[in-house]
């Protein structure tokens, strides 16, 4: 097989085609915009994907359609933008022309004070408006989980978000009206070739296909694999690490597929949290809250389930739930594929069962039975856009009032996502009752020795782990007032 190679990165920036032959593996979109292109409406607030001041929209072509999503330019690598449409705040209105409806709404509701976060909010709200012109308050809040404002207290920004559709008509928006044109343009750019930039410690590869990816990684076993860059981005912006050679994979349509069959779903390694959202919710509605609380909207648009697993973090959001669900991970090296249970993938802190040159190709999540109950609880200092202090997933199979089987997995309690084997053992076979739960909670002390850090103390982690089992039990018994209602609970 001969692979056709291109040596430039090509994308559309606002209304211009950009073609770059000289791109550094660590070059971020934010620095490119601000320093190289002097587009300074996009701001740097944190350089770690947490504040949203650098929010821009990226339109990506997937199976013939372009979808615009908010992303954090600070941790997005320029190389990953090949065949994309990047839209910055500068594209929304001309200097002396009328404001874009999103901008007009923000001005009319006094939604900016210092103004530094404002372009990021404008872009997030623009992304939301395009996807959902009449959002509910909760949908607005969800779209803004990745945008920090320190001045306004957000009330005015929410008012702005609610007002947009009364100010402008979505159909007249350029990105909507000209969708076909840009789709054709991106389709031309997406030529299926392998892209190679630089050499040695500046080398970037965007493989042309999954087979090509396998070949590239086999030949470059020390390469850094980048999917959504929500983690690797920080290696660069915060730790100034050299990451070359870099192999990107999130542009590969084959890895962006998510499919369901009679027994479960298969999630390609390049599927973002946002792309997985509808399928996950359809088949695993118990994961809705967890899924909606992964990072902020921008991070969910960039980050992948595959990456969340592959990097082996003990506090990743999805592994406890996926372990409880009995998920397996398929790894590939060259032409060789193997599948292993997800819980076996995490060996110890910082070490996973992945050989050099091997990559996560997909994740398989089997459905659970009718007689089974599943719940996932994420506990963090701040409810949204925070890393979990503790994340517990509980799955119990009941037979005639007894626990026929159970899987309980935790994040934040050990050096890896880990099952509570002793607690499971204590519960198995028992009559599902408060007494059985109280008898089982002490087994947490055998299963875990959590650490104290800035997210939580060891004592809190242990106590909450036990209380989450109690909560799980309570929720099988009653439905009222077992949790804080995240919608509206009091009279207005």
């Amino acid at each position: 097989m001969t692979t056709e190679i291109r040596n430039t990165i090509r994308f559309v920036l606002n209304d211009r085609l950009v073609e770059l032959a000289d791109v550094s593996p660590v070059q971020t979109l934010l620095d490119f915009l601000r320093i190289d292109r002097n587009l300074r409406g996009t701001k740097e607030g944190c350089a770690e994907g947490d504040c949203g001041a650098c929010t821009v929209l990226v339109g990506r072509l997937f199976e013939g359609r372009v979808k615009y999503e908010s992303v954090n330019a600070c941790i997005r690598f320029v190389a990953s933008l090949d065949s994309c449409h990047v839209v910055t705040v500068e594209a929304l209105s001309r200097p002396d022309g009328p404001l874009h409806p999103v901008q007009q709404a923000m001005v009319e509701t006094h939604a900016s004070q210092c103004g530094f976060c404002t372009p990021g909010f404008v872009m997030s709200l623009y992304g939301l408006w395009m996807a959902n012109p009449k959002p509910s308050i909760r949908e607005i809040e969800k779209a803004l989980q990745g945008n920090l404002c320190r001045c306004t207290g957000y009330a005015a920004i929410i008012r702005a978000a609610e007002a947009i559709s009364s100010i402008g008509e979505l159909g007249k928006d350029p990105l909507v009206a000209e969708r076909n044109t840009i789709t054709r343009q991106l389709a031309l750019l997406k030529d299926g070739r392998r892209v190679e930039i630089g050499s040695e410690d500046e080398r970037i590869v965007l493989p042309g296909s999954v087979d090509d990816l396998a070949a590239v990684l086999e030949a470059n076993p020390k390469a850094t694999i980048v999917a959504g860059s929500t983690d690797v981005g920080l290696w660069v912006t915060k730790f100034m690490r050299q990451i070359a050679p870099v192999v990107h994979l999130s542009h590969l349509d084959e890895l962006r597929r998510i499919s369901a069959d009679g027994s479960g779903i298969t999630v390609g390694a390049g599927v973002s949290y946002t792309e997985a959202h509808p399928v996950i919710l359809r088949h695993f509605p118990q994961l809705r809250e967890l899924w909606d609380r992964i990072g902020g909207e921008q991070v969910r648009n960039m980050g992948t389930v595959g990456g969340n697993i592959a990097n082996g973090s003990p506090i990743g959001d999805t592994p406890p739930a996926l372990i409880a669900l009995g998920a397996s991970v398929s790894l590939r090296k060259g032409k060789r594929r193997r599948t292993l249970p997800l819980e076996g993938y995490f060996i110890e802190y910082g070490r996973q069962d992945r050989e050099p040159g091997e990559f996560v190709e997909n994740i398989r999540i089997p459905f659970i039975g009718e007689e089974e109950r599943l719940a996932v609880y994420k506990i963090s200092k701040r409810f949204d856009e925070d890393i979990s202090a503790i994340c517990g997933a509980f799955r119990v199979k009941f037979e005639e009032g007894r626990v026929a089987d159970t899987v309980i997995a935790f994040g934040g309690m050990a050096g890896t996502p880990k099952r509570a084997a002793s607690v499971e053992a204590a519960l198995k076979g028992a009559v599902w009752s408060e007494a059985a739960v109280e008898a089982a909670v002490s087994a947490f002390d055998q299963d875990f020795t959590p650490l104290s850090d800035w997210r939580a103390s060891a004592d809190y982690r242990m106590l909450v782990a036990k209380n989450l089992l109690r909560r799980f039990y309570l929720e099988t018994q009653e439905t009222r007032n077992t949790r804080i209602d995240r919608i509206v609970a009091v009279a207005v």
Partner: protein
Amino acid sequence: MNVMQPIDRIRGGVHEKERHESGRKHVTGTAEYIDDIPEPAGTLHGYLGLSGRAHAEILSIDFEAVKTSPGVVGVLAAGDIPGENDISPAHKHDDPVFATGKVEFHGQPIFAVIATTRDAARRAAAKARIEYRDLPHVTDVLEAAAADYPLVVDPLKLERGDIVAGFARSRHVVEGEMRIGGQDHFYLEGHISFAIPGEDDEVTVLASTQHPSETQHMVAQVLGVPSNAVTVNVRRMGGAFGGKETQANLFAAVAALAAKKFGRAVKVRPDRDDDMTATGKRHDFHVGYKIGFDDDGRIGAVDAVFAARCGFSADLSGPVTDRALFHADNCYFYPNVRLRSRPLKTNTVSNTAFRGFGGPQGMVCGERMIEDVAYTLGKDPLEIRKLNFYGGEGRNLTPYHQTVDDNIIGRIIEELEVSADYASRRQAVLAFNRESHVVKRGIALTPVKFGISFTKTEYNQAGALIHVYTDGSIQLNHGGTEMGQGLYTKVAQLVADEFQVDLDRIKVTATSTGKVPNTSATAASSGSDLNGMAAANAAQQIKARLVRFASERYGVSEADVAFEPNTIRVGADRIAFVDFIKSAYAARVQLSAAGFYKTPKIHWDRSEGRGRPFYYYAYGASCSEVSVDTLTGEYRVERTDIIHDVGRSLNPALDLGQVEGAFVQGMGWLTTEELWWDAQGRLRTHAPSTYKIPLASDRPRVFNVRLAEWSVNREETIRRSKAVGEPPFMLGISVLEAISMAAASVAGYRIPPRIDAPATPERVLMAIERLRAAKTNG
């Protein structure tokens, strides 16, 4: 003479809900912050090298790898400073630009690398090899007290009445302690300075500073040049909140130093992590208190010691800890009282100004004492609050001997109780808690009284400069800085109103030490009080000249000349403003004036603890209801109602934004914003990934905020308005108190819940566990 049809009123006058002057620029991304300004060719970039130890002797520094790193132009350390290696705003010579000999906190600047790009400078700065010899360090305030660490400034004592007798007469005496966490400002635009060298000893610095004059003086001091050689300009900041009152001086000094040394423009912008590590924050406090009260809950005596984590140097810790004492009474009369500050040195970054400036810490402790009284007696805390409000014969004297003579808290509370439906909602909460075992609710209504003026009397002055040009356009400049609060908008509205011209005729230009000298920091909520008055004064000077000119020119009395919307009325005739200005210019009338203002009536004797430090008080109240999960300690604010007093508002839209924003920031301080140092003295919550400020989804789900429209400042402030920047910050206390009530429910509301701040889910759960255990054992 042209005859004009009179119009009703100008566009954008004072008291109007005018939009922020930069609103359009904010939303289009065209508002320029310092990092957005096009750099001159050859601009260099500086990056600071920070200490990797909390307290250590520096044995040696090897810069070899730094100097040979790609793009590096030079390294600057203490020896490169031609003037003084000090930027202490307290003039205590305890705040070096670059550490020498030893480091006193983890993250203290030791050197700066100057390179052709910021990235190159940053990478090079990480390559310095520094050998340290560790010394014992303390980060915690109680550890500092135990280790006999010194005080960074002289403490303050406020005393009135006889506490020994007061406690002796009290039926109940409760002692307690409270820890109150600090807070990072988390302005979205981090620190940045951009210095452009000029001829001779001159330098111009664009700095993100709330205090351009101090930045100017500090740069001059470091460079060893007179202040007249240094110009500091600030168009706007991307947020500040007190974090850029003194902390910008470091970056300005380093940028200026490098600009003069290398003869090129130099920009210094730290990464967010370094910004949060190397610059000061709100002071953490430990308060030990004792309160005596009778069976009704009427307070008889209060004795409290406020120990603060000041960090390694004085900075503003003196006035910050003073203000904690000034606000420990909040709205309550303490018949016998002694309040003492203990500004302790610690091996942490030097803490600094932050919205409220110590006042919130004092006030939250005052409210904690009310809570202790209420739960000890089994009463509604609001009942205790109302019982102890200032008011009535002999009950108006503060612990610092200022009489509270503008008290409107009674009316505010009364209105809020009704509009928030407090009484019946409290009953509903109590009923809910009887039935609900996991989720518990709490509701609290808390007041705010905040003193307005710099307690350092000399800061209560301001200047402004107005030019009227011959085309009728007006340029306005004043000493206040724009950090988002809308100061430029408000002052422009005032000037428009003075001249009776439409607002778009007025341009506010960047704050500059070259236009208005010797200004005070835009701080202490004083921005519009001081600068609004100074600008009005400048306008009035020009108007007086114009009136005199019109009177002479048209032969009418001065009383017959009036500024009406976009026109001048002279007798029965009206002249368009622009035509009138042209004729005044032709008649050689001076169309420019420098205005000045100083706050009257205030005086303060710190050594005696007596005086009138505040010109007036601003008031407000908030009522919050929360739900708390007693299995995890998680909570959410279900509803908050606020009534806040801004006197007669200069701009109700901007003031409302200040109140909403301050509340959420105050709530963040008391809930999820936690500063956490590890055993090595490293701050580990130094970025938004680890330091959690409120999100849109954290704001109260129901949020009813209004201004007390009926309020008029009884003092002669600018248009009878009141300051708004800081006072509403403390409205967030209602959230902490509501969480406390929910926690107290597990012990029948009879044990003071005493949740320390910030009330993270962990602290809330641990308090609930403690209360449950106490109930079982008690």
